[in-house]
């Protein structure tokens, strides 16, 4: 599997990022660096298929299928996981209900222990994920739930925007664990200004 960006750019009236070109192979981690306002978040959203590119294109090539031209990220949402500061989950629901909801809309059959195991995997104590609504959790705890959301469906491509933000040391080690697991599954792209996040990457793209 390979993720390829060719002269990818996006503008909202004025330029947001790009054009950038790069290629990432399965098992690798790409870091996206750049100062505030350089378009890291927009690039990640474009790669995740949440935003249409203004110019150029992003392509995903999977082994055995679509070998010719690859496919666009927006056509394969079930292969993509995404977590970002401007992602929010449903505050009226508990973390567990959130996970079960997203399993259902993705067409997965929710098994009782799976959501719980996933949430425990990102270090949430049981009483905070099954009893309290998400809106009453702390920012750091919600960041952990986002990591669980992004990996819920075992995506081939995982996009993490500022994954270490608001996390304590234990939380950061969970990010490391998530990235290590994703290496076995496919591609990871991390956008951050924090050297500790970028240290997880094998390759780097810097936006200006």
């Amino acid at each position, binding site marked *: 599997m390979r993720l390829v960006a060719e002269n990818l750019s996006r503008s909202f009236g004025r330029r947001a990022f790009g054009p950038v070109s790069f290629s990432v192979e399965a098992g690798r981690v790409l870091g996206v660096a750049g100062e505030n306002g350089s378009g890291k978040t927009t690039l990640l959203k474009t790669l995740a*298929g949440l935003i249409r590119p203004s110019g150029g294109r992003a392509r995903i090539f999977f082994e055995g299928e679509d070998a010719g031209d690859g496919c666009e990220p927006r056509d394969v949402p079930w292969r993509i996981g*995404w977590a970002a500061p*401007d*992602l*929010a989950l449903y505050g009226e629901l508990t973390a567990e209900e959130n996970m079960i909801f*997203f399993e259902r*809309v993705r*067409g997965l059959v929710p098994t009782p222990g799976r959501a719980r195991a996933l949430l425990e995997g990102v270090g949430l104590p049981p009483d905070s994920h099954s009893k309290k609504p998400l809106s009453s959790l702390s920012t750091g705890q919600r960041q952990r739930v986002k990591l669980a959301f992004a990996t819920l469906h075992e995506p081939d491509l995982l996009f993490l925007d500022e994954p270490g933000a608001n996390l304590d040391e234990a939380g950061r080690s969970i990010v490391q664990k998530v990235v290590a697991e994703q290496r076995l599954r496919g591609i990871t792209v991390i956008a951050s200004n924090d050297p500790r996040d970028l240290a997880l990457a094998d390759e780097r793209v810097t936006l200006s």
Partner: protein
Amino acid sequence: MSAPRPAAGILPAAIAVFRRELLAEWRTRVAVNSLFLFAFAVLVLVAYAVGPTRLSPEDRPTVNAVLLWIVLFFSAMTGLSRTFVHEEDAGTAAALRLSAPPSGVLLGKLLANVALLGAVTVFIVPLFVVLMGFEIMDPPLFVLLLLLGTFGLASASTFTAALVSKASAKGALFAVLAIPLLLPPLVGAVLATRVAATEADFSAGTDFVRLLVAYDGVVTTAAFLLFDAVWRE
């Protein structure tokens, strides 16, 4: 690497979205409160200001039909935009966009809005009939009109809500965008309600029933065809 999975089915996703909407609504009661309170407040105002006695018998069917649909229309305008507007405001839209098939999202939210507006209709119409002394000669036609009209209102409003949720000045824009789309069926529904109030013969209203069925079908189809472009831009 995980095995390739097909995209999620529309129906399971729609059911999940519908259940989540109702659960969230049950816990917060924001839309229910605003809809019911608004409808009730307007009804009280209308019943007090107009009432059953101040209308001459020949004016009663027309004025009551108009007032009833005005109450239902503006109730829809106060509450039905929330499904999408809250999703964008709270920032949950991206998670849903990434996880669920677009048609499933629209279907789930449409069903939730139909349920919500249906509940308001069930609550407000009997009160309206009693407080306004609104005599219905043809109850089956009246009920059918309410069903079709409510569905049309919910359908056009849900799609409009998806549009305005991405714009600034959402509240003001919602009614501005919805009124031109809803004027034709509302005019039809008002005229047909007057027919239901004055004539016991069901066949007198069939033209309007056909109009509403056709409208509901067309606006719902158009909404489903265009929703992907709106939802994922």
